[in-house]
Every structure is written in structure tokens, then in C-alpha cells.
């Protein structure tokens, strides 16, 4: 009987020890501590930015303060009431939206074709697309300027939206292809037998099946277009000046307006945070479903 208890206890120990392995999650003090430190390190620069946006310029440049002693929302009101800033914010959102719509729309059929069929040059085209993802924006800044100037799109939201297709279309094709792969081919065949025409099948049956994928793809297009600055500032001058470009202009007006810059910085984080909140559950699920 004594032996029974011992073996039982031994089993419990084994079970306890392997519990973490079984769930695939690291537990224990050290990983938790490391994780907490990482999160802290991740948040600190962002906290610093938020804190700066609430302080005055004299306060920022005069001392090291861990929290704003006299917080004020003055700069936020200033930006939100200044047409230059609000217009630039709208411009940024507009070209990001246009770009996301174009990228996802053209990428959807292409992703389907790449996944379902062999055709002449399919491998080369896919590689070419992937390689564009690696094309340095700096290489394209100059020729893009020439191109869009020549066709009269310079300084419009369309120029930036089209230019960002350079890397967003490949990204969209790549991610969507993974999601298309997750849909069994039998569904295509079944729809064909049921007499669905291809466009109707694609829109009525196929699209809802990869809705998650479309969401995740749109998120990535949004993200890459929203954070890109080099092309966006090169292709605009006055009318379609993006938010980031207005920020760089405020550098020189009477020195550095750190407080204003920080406020603008905080505002640029909001759209991204909103978008990621909507797709937070799909990001992990989406990648897992797809080829990635």
C-alpha cells in the first residue's frame, strides 16, 4: 500500500512536470520574468512618447521626468483644430484605404490562380512578385517621381496608393495564396457541378470561406502602407501631403517642437491600434490556417 502511494506521488510529479510541455507553453518563474521584462521594454518607448505629448517643450528639454508633472492636452487640441494636420491625416488614411482595396482586389484572383493551376511561367511570376517585396524603396523613389510626374498623378493620393502597390500586391498575393490553399478543392468542383458560373462561385461561395484571410491581408496592407514614409513623402508636395511629411516640416519651425511631434506620433498610432484590435483573433488563426 505504501508503494502504491509512492508510485501515485511519482506519477503526479511526472504529470506536473510535463504539464507545461503538453500545453506547449513555457511556465515557471524565469520565462515569466523574461516575458514581463520584454513587455516592459516594449512599452517603455511608447510610454515615453505619450508622456512627452502631455508635457510642454521647456519641460521636455530641461529634465528627465518619469511622468508628466503638469499634463496638458493642449497640443492635441492644437493638431485637431489645425486644418493642415487634419487634412494630412485624412490624406494618409485615404491613400492607405485606396491601396488596401486595390491590393486585395487584384490579389484575390491571382492568389486563386497560383494555388489552383499550373500555367506558363507561374513559378517565375511568383518569384518576381516575391522579389518586389525585397525591392528597396530607395531604389524606386527617383523613378517613381519621374513616372508619376510624367502621367500627371504627382501630388495626388493616387500616386502614393499606386506606388505602395509595389510591395503590398506581392504581400497580398502571398498571404491570400496560403488561405486559398486551406480551402479544399472539392468545394470548387462541387460548385461547378451545382451549375455555379465561376464569378458567381468565387463571390458567393469562395470569398466567404476565406473572409478571415481577406481580413488578415487587409491588415497587413494597411500596416505596410501606413508606416511607409519614403515613397509617400517623395511623391507628394502640397495638396496630398501625408501626415508624416507635415511632421518633418515642423522640425524647423523655431527649433524642435518635441511636444507637438510626440502628439502627432501618438495620433498616428491610433488607426493601427484600432485595425489590429479588429483582427487580433484572426492573425494567429489566419496564419495557422494558411500556408504560413
Amino acid at each position, binding site marked *: 500500500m505504501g508503494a502504491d502511494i509512492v508510485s501515485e506521488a511519482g506519477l503526479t510529479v511526472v504529470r506536473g512536470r510535463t504539464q507545461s*510541455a503538453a500545453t506547449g507553453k513555457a511556465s515557471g518563474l524565469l520565462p515569466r520574468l523574461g516575458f514581463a521584462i520584454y513587455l516592459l521594454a516594449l512599452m517603455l518607448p511608447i510610454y515615453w512618447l505619450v508622456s512627452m505629448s502631455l508635457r510642454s517643450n521647456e519641460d521636455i528639454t530641461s529634465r528627465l521626468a518619469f511622468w508628466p508633472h503638469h499634463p496638458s492636452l493642449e497640443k492635441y487640441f492644437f493638431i485637431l483644430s489645425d486644418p493642415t494636420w487634419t487634412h494630412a491625416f485624412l490624406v494618409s488614411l485615404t491613400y492607405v484605404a485606396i491601396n488596401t482595396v486595390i491590393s486585395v482586389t487584384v490579389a484575390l484572383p491571382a492568389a486563386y490562380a497560383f494555388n489552383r493551376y*499550373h500555367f506558363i511561367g507561374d513559378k517565375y511570376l511568383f*518569384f518576381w512578385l516575391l522579389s518586389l517585396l525585397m525591392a528597396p*524603396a530607395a531604389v524606386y523613389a527617383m523613378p517613381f517621381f519621374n513616372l508619376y510626374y510624367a502621367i500627371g498623378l504627382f501630388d495626388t493620393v493616387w500616386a502614393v496608393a499606386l506606388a505602395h502597390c509595389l510591395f503590398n500586391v506581392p504581400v497580398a498575393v502571398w498571404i491570400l495564396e496560403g488561405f486559398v490553399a486551406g480551402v479544399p478543392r472539392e468545394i470548387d468542383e462541387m460548385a461547378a457541378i451545382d451549375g455555379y458560373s465561376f464569378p458567381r462561385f468565387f463571390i458567393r461561395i469562395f470569398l466567404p470561406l476565406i473572409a478571415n484571410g481577406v481580413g488578415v491581408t487587409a491588415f497587413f496592407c494597411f500596416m505596410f502602407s501606413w508606416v511607409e514614409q519614403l515613397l509617400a513623402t517623395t511623391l507628394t508636395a502640397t495638396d496630398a501631403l501625408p501626415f508624416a511629411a507635415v511632421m518633418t516640416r515642423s522640425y524647423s519651425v523655431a527649433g524642435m517642437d518635441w511636444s507637438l511631434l510626440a502628439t502627432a506620433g501618438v495620433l498616428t498610432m491610433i488607426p493601427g491600434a484600432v485595425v489590429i484590435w479588429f483582427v487580433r483573433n484572426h492573425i494567429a488563426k489566419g*496564419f495557422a490556417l494558411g500556408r504560413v
Partner: protein
Amino acid sequence: MEKPYNNRAWLMVAPVFALVLFSALLPMMTVVNYSVQDSLGQNQFFWNGDGWFRDLLNPSTEIGARFADALLRNLSFSVVALLIEIPLGIAIALCLPRSGWTIGPLLVIIALPMLIPWNVVGTIWQIFSRADIGLFGAALTRLGLHYNVTQEPISAWCTIVVIDVWHWTPLVILLVYAGLRAIPDAYYQAARIDAASRWATFINIELPKLQKVLVIAVLLRFMETFMIYTEPFVVTGGGPGSATTFLSIDLVKIALGQVDLGSAAAMSLVYNLITLTLCWIFFTIMTQLDRRRYA
């Protein structure tokens, strides 16, 4: 299952193809055009053959030495950044809970740095790394380190690495986390039956299953570090001296700063060719993995 051969699929690829022709090939042709000509101003160009390329690839010329330096600097930066980001990303992804209410907010917090426009990232770190008013700089100085971004080449270089790690480890975390979630429970149950240790589970189950995701993470991170522009441009401006003048920064300096179009165009093409070659290597590895999976 073998894919059917059907050239009508081109119809579906056509919009992407047209867009890519317009936004990639057309501009590239302008670059090719510049790279073989010289200009005397007033839009007068004459044929210069491979002159720009020969200068660029010859380290004994001024532009050649500059290019070789920037290339080396950029490669070492990419390798160091990857060596930190990939293991860190895996470690953090392993610490994330697999389910529960905390995972949503945690993912949002972790992804936040990626959603900040790059020049804002630069602005944040510009202040954050200052020894007098920034927490990071102040902390390092307090520790007795000789830290000054604008004066010390090593400080500047390390700061750019820290920024990149801060900015882009989240991407690795998200990818690896997604990969981990895709591993069926049966594998973990098998590990439990074998009473495998945490480390053995990681080495024998998780790491092999993550192979593909990791190739993608390495590919994306390598290419982006290889093209890094905005952060060093805002934080250090490529300095002090040329300590953080990476390839893209050098290129923009030559093209827009000195308006030396021929050199810049030749440099663009060589730069693009290097990324293309590296991309091809990664692509081959990826398709090999795919084939092995389906075999």
C-alpha cells in the same frame, strides 16, 4: 494532388501582372536608362556604357570603396539583428498563452510597435536615447557606459540594432505564435506519454514544425534590415561619420543629395541584384521544404 495545367489562369493573374509592370518594371527601366548614360546638365545625356558599373564595383575608386563599406556595414547589421530577433521572437512566442482572454490584448500590445510610422519610431528613439532627457540614454549613462548617439559610432550602431529589435521582433513573435498554434494537440499528447522534457518537446516537435514559418521570418527580416532607411535617417542621419550609413541611406545621399544619377542608378541595379540573389536562395529553400512536406 497535382494541379491541373490551365493557361486561362493567366486571366486571373493579368491584373496583378499589369499593375506590377506599371509600378515595378517601368520605373526600373528608367533606372537602367540612367545607369548607362552620363549627363552634362540641361537634360543632355550621352552613352556611358558600363562605366558607372566598373567604378562602382572597383573598391579602389571613391564610389567603389564607399559602396563596399556600406554593403559590409549593412550585412553585419542584418546578421546581428537577425541573431537577436529570431531567438528572442521564438522565446517570447513560447511564453504567450495559447488561449484565454489575455491573448487578444497581449497580441495587440506586442504588435503595436509595427504599426507606428517609421519616422515616428525614429522620433521616439531620438529622444529616448538622449542621455540628458531620454530614459534609455540616461539609464545607460547611469550604468557608467560611454553612450552618445551623435558622437560615438559604436553607440549609434548599437542603437539602430536596438531600435530594429524593438520595432520588428513583434513580427517574428506573431509568425512563430501562429506556427505554434498550428501544431496539432496529438503531438503534445505523444510528448506527454513519452514524459518528454520541455526542452525535448521544443527540439523534437516545435522546432521542426516551425521550420517553414522561421524561413519566412528570416526572409522578411533579412530583407527589411537590408533595406533599412527611415530609422537611421531620423535618429543618426547615417552618422556619426558614416557609422550608420547603410545601403539605402547611401543610395539616397548619392541620388537626391549629390544628384549623381549615373552612379545612383548603377548602385540601385547592383543593390537590387544582390537582394534578388538572396531572395532566390530563400525561395529555393522554401519550395524545397514545400516539396518535402507534400512528398
